[in-house]
């Protein structure tokens, strides 16, 4: 029953704070509006520069084929590789396609042919996707030349995101990010600010139990988290027309658990810090590491072994997985029981640590 009074107090303080209520409402809106457009690893165009040593019918047809894709944009045709390299250095071209002499002759006579694709890969993803896509365009061009030789119909089917829309991929992850930042940072500043003001002393001298204290600190952020995530749902539909394929209830269930995990972590940081500045930086540090190693921006499976190992101890990894699976693939509880158990584990551990690390009586 004590909880009721404490929670009332937390809410009143939060409401009277000049910045927190605004942050809770405005920050998700701005982020949902900007971030999916900005956080876009989708590569639109690759500007191709061609060095055609063959100048035959076939080579021209190949160039036409490349230029006709949505993906490539022909910016020029130069006579040698060095000139093409210059185009890349100037930033006008991204990829060079070098066609050897005798392309046509060798292709018709069945001699080996070697084409060269060079890409500016300062941006690794862009370079990688550009070369792989250009290669596949060339492959399909060659097989069109010899339709009899390749009796196999090779097709690709893109599931869940047929238009390869990067925003669909980012929006669920963005929700995780917002939830992590808001329900992670705010509690990390909470207890330590009571320490700085001195009100914590007055609470420490009451019979208030540690468990009730931590719970009363958690529940408001839990509510904040639910407000934030609900706001995100609405914004996702309004701005991007993205509706979860799976069950909304499943997402809420996981969000409820996850918010306790991050807020619990924030409270632990707060308990161990002596100034707000310290709490902020420590929390900042962990959130950056958590975010980068969660698979939110780049796939966990692309990471080296050690990093994958760390990401296994990162609650964000599981929640990002869950959000994407439910939102885009429509996975249900039956598919997600492993993640559920792991997040529950995190919840218990972080919750217990938050209670344990709060000290009512000092040395």
């Amino acid at each position, binding site marked *: 029953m*004590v909880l009721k009074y404490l929670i009332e107090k937390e809410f009143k303080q939060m409401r009277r704070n000049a910045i927190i209520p605004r942050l809770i409402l405005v920050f998700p809106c701005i982020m949902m509006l900007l971030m999916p457009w900005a956080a876009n690893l989708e590569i639109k165009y690759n500007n191709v520069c061609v060095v055609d040593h063959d100048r035959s019918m076939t080579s021209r047809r190949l160039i036409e084929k490349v230029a006709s894709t949505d993906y490539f944009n022909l910016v020029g045709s130069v006579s040698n590789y060095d000139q093409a390299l210059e185009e890349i250095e100037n930033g006008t071209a991204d990829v060079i396609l070098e066609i050897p002499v005798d392309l046509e002759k060798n292709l018709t006579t069945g001699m080996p042919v070697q084409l060269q694709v060079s890409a500016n890969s300062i941006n690794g993803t862009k370079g990688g996707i550009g070369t792989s896509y250009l290669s596949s365009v060339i492959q399909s061009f060659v097989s069109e030349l010899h339709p009899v030789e390749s009796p196999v119909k090779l097709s690709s089917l893109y599931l869940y995101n047929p238009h390869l829309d990067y925003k669909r991929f980012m929006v669920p992850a963005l929700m995780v990010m917002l939830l992590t930042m808001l329900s992670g940072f705010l509690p990390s500043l909470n207890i330590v600010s009571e320490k700085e003001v001195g009100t914590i002393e*007055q609470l420490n001298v009451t019979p208030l139990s540690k468990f009730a204290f931590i719970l009363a600190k958690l529940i408001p952020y839990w509510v904040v988290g639910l407000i934030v995530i609900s706001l995100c749902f609405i914004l996702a539909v309004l701005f991007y027309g993205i509706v979860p394929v799976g069950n909304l209830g499943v997402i809420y269930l996981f969000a409820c658990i996850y918010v306790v995990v991050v807020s619990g972590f924030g409270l632990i940081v707060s308990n161990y810090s002596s100034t707000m500045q310290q709490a902020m930086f420590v929390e900042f540090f962990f959130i950056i590491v958590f975010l980068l190693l969660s698979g939110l921006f780049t796939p966990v499976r692309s990471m080296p072994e050690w990093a994958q190992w760390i990401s296994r101890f990162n609650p964000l990894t599981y929640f990002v997985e869950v959000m994407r699976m439910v939102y885009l693939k429509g996975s249900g509880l039956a598919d997600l029981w492993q993640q559920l158990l792991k997040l529950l584990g995190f919840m218990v551990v972080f919750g217990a640590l938050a209670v344990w690390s709060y000290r*009512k009586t000092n040395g």
Partner: protein
Amino acid sequence: MKPLVTIHDVSKSYGKVQALQHVSLEVMPGEIFGIIGPDGSGKTSLFRMLTTLLYPDEGAITVNGFDTVKDYKAIRRCVGYMPGRFSLYPDLSVEENLEFFATLFGTTVQENYRLIEAIYKQIEPFKKRKAGKLSGGMKQKLALSCALIHKPVVLFLDEPTTGVDPVSRKEFWEMLRRLKQEGITMLVSTPYLDEIKSCDRMAFLYQGELKGIDTPAVMLERFADILCPPGLQREEAVLQQEYAIEVKDLVKRFGDFTAVDHISFSVRKGEIFGFLGANGAGKTTAMRMLCGLSYPTEGTGTVAGFDINTQQEEIKKHIGYMSQKFSLYDDLKVWENIRLFAGIYGLDETVIRERTEEVLKELGLEKERDTLVRSLPLGWKQRLAFSVATFHRPEIVFLDEPTGGVDPKTRRQFWELIYRAADRGITVFVTTHYMDEAEFCGRVSIMVDGCIRVLGTPEELKRTFGEKDMDGVFHRLAREATRKSD
């Protein structure tokens, strides 16, 4: 002689709140001028305008011949200022703070050391300690040293001795008088009667209005009801035989420093027990152990029948506590603070509602129930904090310097509350730096260097030492101290 500070018809308001109305006064060079008034009378606003931190809404102020609005840079070169709250860097050591402020004002510690010697030598043994780790009184002494170090033409001191023990206050005022001989003009606000008497002239502010300017003797008579209220009378309470607090050989060490050194005493139920001592004598440390906020290093004791070593959480159920910081939530309303703490102690919703009305009526705060605690005057906050601490009818209430920084009339009102609580059977354990308050206690103990030096009723102590008041007793004992800090 031309006045050094002139305030001409100055008004100041914050939104709807009128802080000062048409105040005019002049301060002559070399004067110690008291700005006296209860909390919320506009003293701090006046100080801030004098130090060029605020613009007056109306009227004009000159300091040392410069206008505070136009020539504020010139003024900042020649004044010293000690604001009402601590203005030290908590993560710098004592020595570093002092050096910084000396350099800031273009001087060195060595140059003006003699000005601050009397006060600073008390904290000097601890010059390596961080300012944030000092006790309240120690911080005050350091802040004073910092404000004085550059020997300004005019010195503005906004309640410089709040939370400072009587001996150090006396030394501080001796220092001010020396500064006066050096030709420094001072404007001081203070809630202490003996300090008011030490001023050459004083202005009395009340609710933003200037009520008069004259010598303290004249003024104290004119505003006797506020400045020197009659003493409190209380019939000898019938004490119960049981003990509320019993402590034996209590020790607290921090590293190799013994803050509390084998203290033993007992307090009977229903008693008002005064726990006196100079800054750093170990009072707060001892009290924190009794409240279950820290573990004793050695020794045994019970509070409300529970062991202080093992049953801290049980103790907390049966006590109330009010610290120097008046730890109410600033951003909660009056009734919300009451409700919160009552709720934490597990009181019933209906009981809370009934008693809240009672308490508000008793405090005369009915109209302020929806006011944020932040905007209450200090004296009201203190009384509210006390009522919150006793709301759940604890067996014992611990009060750590509950009346710092308020005028005599407000303090008297506070003590009426204490008496009422004691009449209801609550044991009161109180620390204070006001020796007139010591006389209000049933028994007092005086701590010197971590040990309890004497213990008895005020009458007994005065008789033993042959002094006419507790002030005298305290000075006799505190001068014995070898350790000058916590």
